[in-house]
Structures are given as structure tokens and as C-alpha cells.
């Protein structure tokens, strides 16, 4: 069943308005053949709408969508040959598992002699052939999910679209299913677009991620790119915990420094920054370290532990360094290693080479 026809997807200047609200505002994207690509964003960001545009559902957007080089913007859903797995699975309750899976082949007028073999192969692939005679209501959530996958891949779509397919499963099953989906995708070499609001899910499964917010494409890149080099506050915050300080870049003698609104000053060193560069300084909690109260330096700030979260492998401290500014600092945890308590006086050392200045 390996897909010979994995196709790339190109989205050009896609905009969509419902009534008066703009849901998508000029999205441009290029998804490579065989890629596992994710639309990541909070609810209302337009990620599901964008996916539905690719599938052909909803009002016709402005702009163009090309699949495998062919423009499909004007095509109805049933002429696009893209496979979609719905969030609710959308298995038809009046049909057995077998009939559900066979549906797409029947609609494509596949010779009836060929259908049983292909249904068996598809159900085998998801390990559910023995449940072929059951009704969807007799299946568990994970099984329904697999049937929905089988029903979609059996028609050998050019692109596989997954609309938050794991959101209805419990945590353990979710981890297992996302591995299964990834394995299946690699085996079939299917171009896949996955929609989720869960950054961990996106990071673990994707080749590349497009982050969306308020209908605007914020950034596209590999999971590590986005985490390490976010282009703005939204991406920095959405892909993980970050210290985000508002302020501005100023000239200080030879180099530059960042002055936060609360008065905290971060020396930025000589090159790469100029006044007016950006208004936010960003670094991750693991880019700082915590130690018992000691002498303050330019990059070591005295403060008091305001809050402590034990996360297993590490402890995340929130340290108030002045009246308006708190910094989050991670400290690895091992049995017997010293831990600080709320109220302790400490020093926070910021590793300046990881501090990034973002425009906004």
C-alpha cells in the first residue's frame, strides 16, 4: 500500500473570513512530499480552518492551494483525493468496521473483487482485522481511531490530514497512538499534515511545524529551530516555558545592554545588537542557574525564592530579583542534592550567550 504519489502541498496567500471575522490572513506555506508537517496553535488560531481548506470544506478561501503541483482551490472535497481523519473519527454508526473501511473504495468504483483484499490489508495494518464485523459503538477510543486511519489510508490519498486525532484519547494511549501514526506515515511515505494545540505532541512527531496565531502564520521550522530560535514572543511562549522581559536595547560604553521595564539590566556584549533592535529579552529557565546567595555581578542577580515546582528530573524556581521582575530558573534534581525553599535568599546566574532579543 506504499504511496507512490506522495505529493507536496503549496499554500499561497490564503485568506478566509467568516461573516466579518478574519480567520486566516494571507498564509503562505510549502510542504514537501513525504513530510510530516504540523499546524500548531491555540484554539481559534485558524489551524483547523487551514486544514479544512486543504480538504475543501467550508467556504472557499481567497488565495491558492496546490497539491502535487495541481491547483485544487476550486475542487469540491470529493475530487481532491486527500484523506482526512476527523477529531471525532466520524465513523458511521450504521455500518460495520468493514463497511466503513470499504466505503472509499466503493466510491472510487474499485472492482468489487479487489475490495476485500484491500480492506483486509488496511485493517491488518492497524491490527484490527478480527474486529471487522463490529460496529463502531462496540470499539474503544483507540480502536475507533485506528479504524478511522485505516478508512482513510486505504484510498491511497495524496496527502493525509489529521485533525487533532489524539485529543479524545487518554494520556498513555495518546503517546502510543502518536508513535503508531508516525510509523505508519514513515512506512507509507505519506505527506501528512497534523493539527494540534499540544506543543509536546507537535515536537515529538513532526519534521516541521507551522505555528499559527490569530489566523497569521508566525513561524515555520523544525521543532528544535522553533524552540531555540523563536521569532517572537508568541512562539517563544507557546513552545515552552520562557523568561520574557519587556524593555529595550541601549548603548553602554563599548557594547549594548538590555534594560527591562522593572530596572533589571542584562549586558549583551559587543556585537549583534543595536538600540531599537527589539523590545523583549528571552531566555529559557535552563539558560540560568541558581546558587546560594553570593556576591552580585553584571549577570548574577540576588533574589528571593518566591515559588518552587518539583518536576521530577528538575526543580523550577521562580526567583523575585526586584519588585517587578521574577525569573524562572531550572535546577537539575538528584537525591541528596541541595534544594532551596520558598523565602531563601539566592543568586541567579544568567548565561548571557543564550539571551535573545525579540521584536515583540
Amino acid at each position: 500500500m506504499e504511496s507512490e504519489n506522495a505529493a507536496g502541498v503549496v499554500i499561497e496567500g490564503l485568506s478566509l473570513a467568516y461573516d466579518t471575522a478574519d480567520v486566516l490572513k494571507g498564509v503562505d506555506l510549502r510542504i514537501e512530499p513525504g513530510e510530516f508537517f504540523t499546524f500548531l496553535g491555540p484554539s481559534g488560531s485558524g489551524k483547523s480552518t487551514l486544514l479544512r481548506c486543504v480538504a475543501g470544506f467550508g467556504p472557499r478561501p481567497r488565495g491558492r492551494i496546490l497539491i502535487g503541483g495541481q491547483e485544487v482551490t476550486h475542487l469540491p472535497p470529493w475530487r481532491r483525493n486527500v484523506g482526512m481523519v476527523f477529531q471525532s473519527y466520524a465513523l458511521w454508526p450504521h455500518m460495520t468496521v468493514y463497511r466503513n473501511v470499504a466505503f472509499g473504495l466503493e466510491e472510487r468504483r474499485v472492482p468489487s473483487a479487489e475490495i476485500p483484499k484491500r480492506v483486509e490489508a488496511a485493517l491488518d495494518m492497524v491490527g484490527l482485522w478480527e474486529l471487522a464485523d463490529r460496529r463502531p459503538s462496540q470499539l474503544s477510543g483507540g480502536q475507533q481511531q485506528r479504524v478511522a486511519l485505516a478508512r482513510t489510508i486505504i484510498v491511497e490519498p495524496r496527502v493525509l490530514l489529521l485533525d487533532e486525532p489524539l485529543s479524545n484519547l487518554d494520556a498513555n494511549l495518546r503517546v502510543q497512538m502518536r508513535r503508531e501514526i508516525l510509523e505508519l506515515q514513515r512506512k507509507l511515505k505519506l505527506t501528512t499534515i497534523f493539527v494540534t494545540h499540544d506543543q509536546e505532541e507537535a515536537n515529538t512527531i513532526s519534521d516541521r511545524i507551522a505555528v499559527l496565531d490569530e489566523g497569521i502564520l508566525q513561524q515555520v521550522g523544525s521543532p528544535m529551530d522553533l524552540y531555540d530560535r523563536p521569532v517572537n514572543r508568541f512562539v517563544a511562549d507557546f513552545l515552552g516555558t520562557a523568561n520574557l522581559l519587556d524593555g529595550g536595547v541601549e548603548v553602554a560604553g563599548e557594547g549594548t545592554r538590555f534594560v527591562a521595564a522593572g530596572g533589571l539590566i542584562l549586558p549583551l556584549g559587543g556585537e549583534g545588537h543595536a538600540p531599537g533592535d527589539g523590545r523583549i529579552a528571552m531566555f529559557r529557565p535552563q539558560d540560568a542557574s541558581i546558587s546560594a546567595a553570593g556576591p552580585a555581578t553584571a549577570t548574577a542577580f540576588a533574589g528571593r525564592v518566591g515559588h518552587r515546582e518539583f518536576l521530577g528530573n528538575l526543580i523550577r524556581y521562580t526567583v523575585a530579583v526586584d519588585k517587578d521582575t521574577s525569573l524562572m530558573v531550572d535546577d537539575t534534581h538528584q537525591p541528596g542534592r541541595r534544594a532551596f525553599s520558598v523565602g531563601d535568599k539566592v543568586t541567579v546566574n544568567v548565561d548571557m550567550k543564550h539571551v535573545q532579543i525579540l521584536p515583540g
Partner: protein
Amino acid sequence: MYAAIRGQWGPAAVVAVVGLFLLVFLVLPVVNVIYVAFQDPNTGALTLINFVDFFRTSLFRESSINSLYVAAMAVVVSSCFALPLAYFTTRFNFKGAILIQTLGIIPLIMPPFVGAVAMLLLLGENGSINLLLDEWFGFTVPFMEGLNGVILVESIHYFPFILINLSAALNNIDRSMEESAQNLGASGLRLFRRIVFPLAMPGYVAGASLVFLKVFDDIGTPLLLNVNNMLAPQAYLRISSIGIADPMGYVISVILVIFSLLALWTSFLALRGKDYATLQKGGGGLMKRDLRPWEKAACYGVVIFILLLVLSPHFGLMLLSFGTIWSFSVLPDGYTTAHYLQVVSSSFQFVSNTLLYAGLAAAIDVCFGTAIAYVVWRTKLIGRQWLDYIAMGAVAIPGVVLGIGYLRTFYEFNVPIIDKPLASWWVIIVVALAIRRMPYALRACTAALQQISVMLEEAAENLGATKARTVRRVVIPLMAGGIVAGFVTSFATAAVELSTTIMLVSQESDAPLAFGIYEFMQSAAGRGPGAALGIVAVVIVGITTYVSHRFIQRKATQRAPAVTVVPGV
């Protein structure tokens, strides 16, 4: 342990009272009717001779075939009314969809036989339409001729059952059901045939079997249209003209019950294991699409035609109630309010009797309905399910059958103090109405209770409330909407009931509205006042329904967050 045992006493007492009521006034009379049907009228021995006699009589054979034919045709014709209305309003962006759905339900709030007279005047041999047809084109159409008339009147009256059930089924189909089919290559008619239609089918079958059952049991309409060769009217005529001892009435009753059960069985089979409510959180039912101008015109044409037709009994009744003389003419000769004055001055007891009977019956229904629902869903009493089954079983018992059963069973029983047979005391009418409408109230109460998370009750108990106080302070207030809905359905349908009351009214001062209208409509001179009384009935039922609907909606919006607690998560 002590609390657990003590906690069972209340429910057990409730079960005893409700169970006894159902046993005496539902099970006993029905069993009695069936028993008599198999009894030799002379010797009292068990026999099949009555059934043999029944099938040897050509009138009864003809009546059976007529009843089946009329019920089946009524399903076909009412489907023709309901399908377009349901489909257009759920499927397309259609202005006035809510208005259409509301207007479509109006026929239900009038006894079908009341509309029959108005239909005769509009569509009968010498009715308005045929007079016009004859004048303009020189031909007439026998709309109301014999069985046609019964079919038309019943279809107009009962099609809302299909409309309601089918619309609900269509609205419950999640959009993703259709979208996933489109995604896999289905579209247009194939999509409809393979996905939408099968998913809506259970709703349609449920509505259709209800129509079949109601039409099969109705006696008012055929009697008023002077069609006597059908089963239910025959049962009534045998008992009322030949007497309570005549076995044929009982044989017919058994046959009516069998067909009722068959219709319900069909609906049960259609719905079994097909919990097709596929709607997801936030999903919006079927995809609605805009219509092209010519499609829009065509759709509105069809809808307006159907609405005019199904509302024609109401128009006709209105004209009749205000008309002076209306005979062999397109419209009444003149207009007057005399009929209303006459009704108010001389026939007011019909209205007050109806309010009393239907009110009491509905009150009994919601009390027992709430009790049964609570016992079934919140206690572990042994045999609690049977209470539910027996109460619901009343659906399968045609009104005539219950009436005959009451006459047979309670005629010998003299009520102390007033010294009169129970079967001819007005209270028996209330009891009959309560039994017949119990299923409606029970369904509403059960649905309301099932929406309340057990957690809400546990929270009250955790804070120190006893079972009884939890029921009073948490369960009943949260069920209020459902209880009111149950009261209204029971009240509105009891107010226009005729099949049972026609057998149980022993003197005119005890008679309710429906019976009064029936009496008036028998004579040409009584039609005007009868129509006025009919309009009064429609107004009463209409106002109660509207007011309670508003009440329920207000409750629903107030309590939305509490009721949507997801069970089992």
C-alpha cells in the same frame, strides 16, 4: 447499614402505591378485556369461538382491511407532508425554518375529529374547493369520500410525529459524518443514500410507527365522517349499541392491542442498538447550504402548499365558528359571534370539566412519573424496571380498549358514600386520562433525571442532606423543566382525548370538551357552537403549551452549566 435500610423505606412505599395504581387501573382492565375475548359468552369457558365468529363476519373482515389500509395510507400521506418540511428546514439555509417547524406542530393541538368537520366544509363533495373546481373546470375531486376523508384528516393531524422525529434525527447527524464521506469521494445523491438517509432512518421509523398506531386506534374521526366500517369504531359501536356483554367488542380490542404492539415493536427494532446521536461537542448538525433563486422559489412553493393544507382545518374551524350558515357555498353567508356567546353561556361546564380532568390527570402523571424515574434510576429496588415497563406499556393500549376494560371491570364496583358504580363516576375519566398519558410524562421526567449528574446529589449528601431532602432541594428543582414539559404534554393531549372518554361519560354534566364538541358536531345546527368550542380548546392548549415552553427555556438557560456536567468522566 442502618441508613441504607432506612433509605429504602420511602422508595418502597412509593413503589407500592404506584404499582397498585397501575395494577388496578391498567393491568387488571386490559387482562379482563383479553380474558373476555377468549370466553364463551354463554358458558364462560375458554374458547376461540369469538375469533372464529369475528373472521366469519364480512363486516369485520372489511373493517380489518379498511383499518389497515387507512393506517398505512395515513403513514404514506403524512410522510409526504413531513419529509419536505423536515428536509428543507434542516438542510438548507431557509428563512423561517423555525416558523415552519412551529406551524407544522400546530395540528397536534386539536382533536383530529374537530378538524374533520372543517375539512368536510372545505374539501368535501360540496365544500369550498370542489365548488370552485366545479365552477371553473367542471370537475370535482373526492378528497373526503369515505376512507379518503379519514386518511386525509388523520394524516394532517398526525404528520407532526414524523416531522418532529425526523427533524430531530437529521439535526443529530454530525457534520463530520457527511464530510468524511465527501473526503472519501461521495457526493450528491450517493452521499444522501448511503450516509444521511440511513442515519435519519430510525427517527423516521419511530415517527411513522407512532402515526400508524394513533390512526389505527382513533375512533372520533371515522365516526364523525360517518365511516363505521373500521375496527376501532366497530368496537365502540358494538359496546354502546349491543351492550357490554357482546364479545365482538373484546375481540376487536385484542386485535387493536396486537397491532399496537406490532407498530411499537417495529419502532423498537428500528431504534435498537442504533444510538445514532452522532453530534459532537460544538458540532453543528448537517451542512446547510444556500439555495439558488429558482430552488428557493420551488422550496417555498412546496412548503407554503403543505402548510396551507395542514392548517386548513384551523382556518375552516375559524370560519365555521364565526359563520352564520355555511352550506353549499365557498364561504359562510355571514359572520356572527353568537356561537361563542352560546358556548360561554350554556356549555361552559365542558371547559371547566376539561381543565379539571386534564389538570388532575397531568398532575398524577408527573408525580408518578417523577417517582418512577427516581426509583428506576437512583435506587436498587428489585423489580423497579417493571414499574417503568408497565407504565410505558400504556402506549400500546388503545383508548377504546381501556374504556371497554373500565366499563367491564368497574361497573360492578360501587363507590361507597356516593353509591354509584366507579365506571360512571367522573373520577374514572381522570384515572383513564392519567393512565393513557403517563408514558409522555414518564419519558419527560426520565430524560430530565438522566441529565442530572449523580455527583450533584452526592455533593448534597456530603454536605449533610438526607436522601429525602436531597430529592426535594436538588433533584426536583433541577428536574423542574422536564416535569413541566411532562405536565404540559400530558395536559395538552389529555385535553383533546376522546377515545376513552367517549365510553366513560355517563351524563352530560360530567363531559369534557372533546366529548362536547363531538356531541355538537353530530347535528348540522350544532356545528357553529361545536366549532367555537373547538377554537376554545385550541386556544387553551396553545396557551398552556406556549407558556410552559417559555418557562422551560428560561430554566434551561439559567441552569445550562449545571445540567451539562459530563457524566462518567
